[in-house]
């Protein structure tokens, strides 16, 4: 089954990312709730890259790759070219501050961190890889 997707940096394409991840995980016997969390985490990273790294330029692309690396771990590699962002070093704002300041964003990476077990940022030449993994029960 296809485990790679390439999409242009358009927010309207996030739906395609979600259905790609959802289909892959569900076909690998991962529960609906766990699949839902991982779909969300991938959506959040892709949305961040589209908006902040590529200013929603449809000529730029993002790659998404999913692998079942061990019997009980799903690994995601989201990749792009250009200025990278070390998402592991992102300083988490407190929910209280976000609410007080009436900000409409800023919680995406908090969600990613809570959902995933590991996050890794790899930069080689001009290519950035945002790798994250989660242990799951595969039925």
């Amino acid at each position, binding site marked *: 089954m296809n485990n790679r997707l390439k999409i242009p940096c358009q927010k309207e394409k996030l739906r395609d990312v979600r259905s790609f991840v959802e289909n892959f995980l569900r076909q690998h016997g991962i529960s609906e709730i766990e699949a839902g969390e991982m779909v969300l985490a991938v959506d*959040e990273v892709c949305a961040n890259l589209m908006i902040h790294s590529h200013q929603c330029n449809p000529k730029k692309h993002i790659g998404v790759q999913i692998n079942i690396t061990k019997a009980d771990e799903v690994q995601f590699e989201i990749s792009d070219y250009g200025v990278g962002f070390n998402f592991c070093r992102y300083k988490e704002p407190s*929910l209280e501050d*976000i*609410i007080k300041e*009436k900000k*409409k964003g800023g919680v995406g990476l908090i969600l990613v961190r*809570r959902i995933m077990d590991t996050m890794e940022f790899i930069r080689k030449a001009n290519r950035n890889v945002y790798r994250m993994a989660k242990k799951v029960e595969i039925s």
Partner: protein
Amino acid sequence: MHISSVLEDGNYVIAVDGDVDASSSIRLDEAIAQAIQEGQQHILIDCENLNYISSAGLGVFMSYIEELKTKNIRMVLFGLSERVANVFKVLGLDQLLNIKETKDQAKQRAHEQ
């Protein structure tokens, strides 16, 4: 995503249908802003047909918490699927927002003192 707003028994009901993500959350934002601008005091968010919500949508709800408090407006969400409710829980927003299972419970909560 589709949003419809209707006044029902003194409640302003915003029904959200489909996916609220980075591309569509602005419309949810506009619907809530509209309700507040109209001076509505009891806002219900019907999530029965809400299929998906990302941080962009959660951020919209969070950004109104202070204003609702200041203006003494009660906003209650209801009808969340297990999957959507789980996203609120992961962030701890289930503790900061009014979330009920049914529309009747939501109406009741919206009018409680």
